């Protein structure tokens, strides 16, 4: 469970202080699929960095599973990221000239998991993310955009994290492929109960989530349940073939 209390983030440039997040408070329960939406400059990326513990708030408290992590050191934050958070980025951020399997294993390398166990888990999550065994030995630069994002999703899942943070995951994909990726997220949320936090500026994409938090100028302007949510056709065909 995530609980944010009066999260404020300010940047100081010389004598000018820019407050990007203005005392945000909200809760996200386990198993929720939340979209955080807002135009560029709204502060949603800063919020995501704080939620993902890549950054710490200037003031306010951030509780992750009851732990207040807002004052942790860099290495302590790294330790928590390693165990509890999976990232999916807009630009995939896969290691080039490295196999799919090796990319997915990477978080487990830092978590000190034994080699055999690593490979087993990586293969499982790759299949779970919709990438069959044929692709596991491929180099990441041989894949299509949709396939790359699936590798990234598998990498985010491999540690069995408390939440998956997806930062504009469809930003570099065409509409059709983007839909398939969103359906994958939906499936992971519905069938396997993963907590998913999605950051986007596209309302279309946000509609896949159960709950939409809208941010503007560092403030939450709307937080609602998404009644008219888009439902993908999950599991109808092998998604790999569609990409």
């Amino acid at each position, binding site marked *: 469970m995530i609980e944010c209390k009066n999260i404020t983030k300010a940047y100081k440039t010389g004598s000018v202080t820019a407050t990007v997040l203005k005392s945000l408070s909200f809760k996200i329960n386990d198993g929720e699929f939340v979209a955080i939406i807002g135009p560029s400059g709204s502060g949603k990326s800063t919020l995501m960095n704080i939620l993902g513990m*890549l*950054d710490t708030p200037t003031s306010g408290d951030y509780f992750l599973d009851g732990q207040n992590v807002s004052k942790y050191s860099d290495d302590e934050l*790294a330790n928590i990221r390693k165990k509890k958070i999976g990232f999916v980025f807009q630009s995939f951020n896969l290691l080039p000239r490295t196999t799919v399997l090796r990319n997915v294993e990477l978080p487990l390398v830092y978590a000190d998991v034994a080699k055999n166990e690593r490979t087993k888990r990586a293969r499982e999550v790759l299949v779970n993310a919709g990438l069959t065994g044929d692709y596991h030995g491929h180099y990441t630069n041989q894949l299509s955009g949709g396939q790359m994002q699936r590798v990234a999703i598998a990498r985010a899942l491999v540690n069995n994290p408390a939440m998956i943070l997806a930062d504009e995951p469809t930003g570099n994909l065409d509409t059709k492929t983007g839909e398939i990726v969103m359906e994958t997220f939906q499936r992971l949320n519905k069938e396997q109960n993963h907590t998913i936090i999605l950051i986007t500026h596209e309302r279309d994409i946000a509609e896949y989530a159960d709950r939409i938090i809208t941010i503007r100028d560092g403030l939450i302007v709307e937080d609602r349940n998404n009644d008219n949510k888009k439902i993908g056709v999950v599991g109808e065909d092998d998604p790999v073939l569609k990409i």
Partner: protein
Amino acid sequence: MRISDLLEQTFSSLFANKARSGLTVLGIVIGIGSVIAMVSIGQGTQSSITSSIQSLGSNLIMIQPGFQRGVGTQVRTERGSSQTLTLADAIAIGDTLSGIKAVAPQTQSRSQVTAKGTNTNTQVNGVTADYAEVRNVAVASGDFITEQDNANLAKVAVLGPTTVTDLFGEDSDPIGQTIRVNKLDFKVVGVAAAKGGSGFSNQDDAIYIPLATAQRFITGSVYVNSINVQGVDSKSLDQLQTDITGLLLERHKISDPTLADFQILNQSDIVASASTITNTLTLLLASIAGISLLVGGIGIMNMMLTTVTERTREIGLRKAIGAKKADITMQFLAEAVTLTFVGGVIGVLLGWFASLAVRQFGGIDTQVSLFSVLLAFGVSAVIGIIFGYYPAWRAAKLNPINALRYE
């Protein structure tokens, strides 16, 4: 993070950029290789100079007459030209002092030496039987001068190999032939083995005749030109030198040591001063090579900095998925150390080959010592750590947010 993962990661990223890694390693190879080669040449020079000094004889002390100074004049003549040492001095040294293995007095003069139809001007040494051992003269064929020859004033001669060639031609056997020195016929009884040049003189261009014969017929005096004393070991040479000085001052009735009419050369002094020179030479060569090692190290740093910049996003990602600062530092440090280590191994081999080549074609008896190999390895590892640390530190302190967005 496990060691095996670290190694796997290191090799895969170094292999991803084969040309760049190769060229960077080359810088270290040249640096280490030249350190090894240069030090081996320096040490080879040192050992060949030392062995050439040792070829004069081992544990040797040479006593020569001092300056000759006329009464009432300050003009000095050449050192060793005065006549102050006698056979009796030599016998006294041998009889009264301890720590002596053998004493070999000798006369020295240059004479025209003739054989059938040929002649040469060579050094004529009047020697005793002990001379062969004291001055390291081996006999290639025949016999050396004996005590019997000295007692009998025998007119026999042992020729140096160069003199044999000069008088009788290459590959000839002069034993039993007659040579003529100072209008006297000498029978050749032996040929000395080649010793090679030692510094300024060719020890092979000489003939040896009995000391008594030389004193009677060639120099015509009771004086000797030098007394060679062989000590029992190198440690006692300094003490022996002091003892000899005391004895001779007493025998020559000189109370002020600064007015001594003889001089003593101690072989260990010569070796020591030669070593000082060659050590300086080795140091000079090694420091020149060291500069190329430094340049190689800067090459590593340059490459690692480029790599860190290129892989900024990768570093950001690794940090996002849980890599600690230490993990990132280790990763880049491992790459730098691997480069220098590989360069070190190849460099040692290359330096070794270079030193073998110098031995083969350059005539210097080069030696690759374990010490220089260990030194080169140590230095390359230290270079890897020093020059790799800064780029690794830069990588580790990257902010993951900025690194992930880096274009």
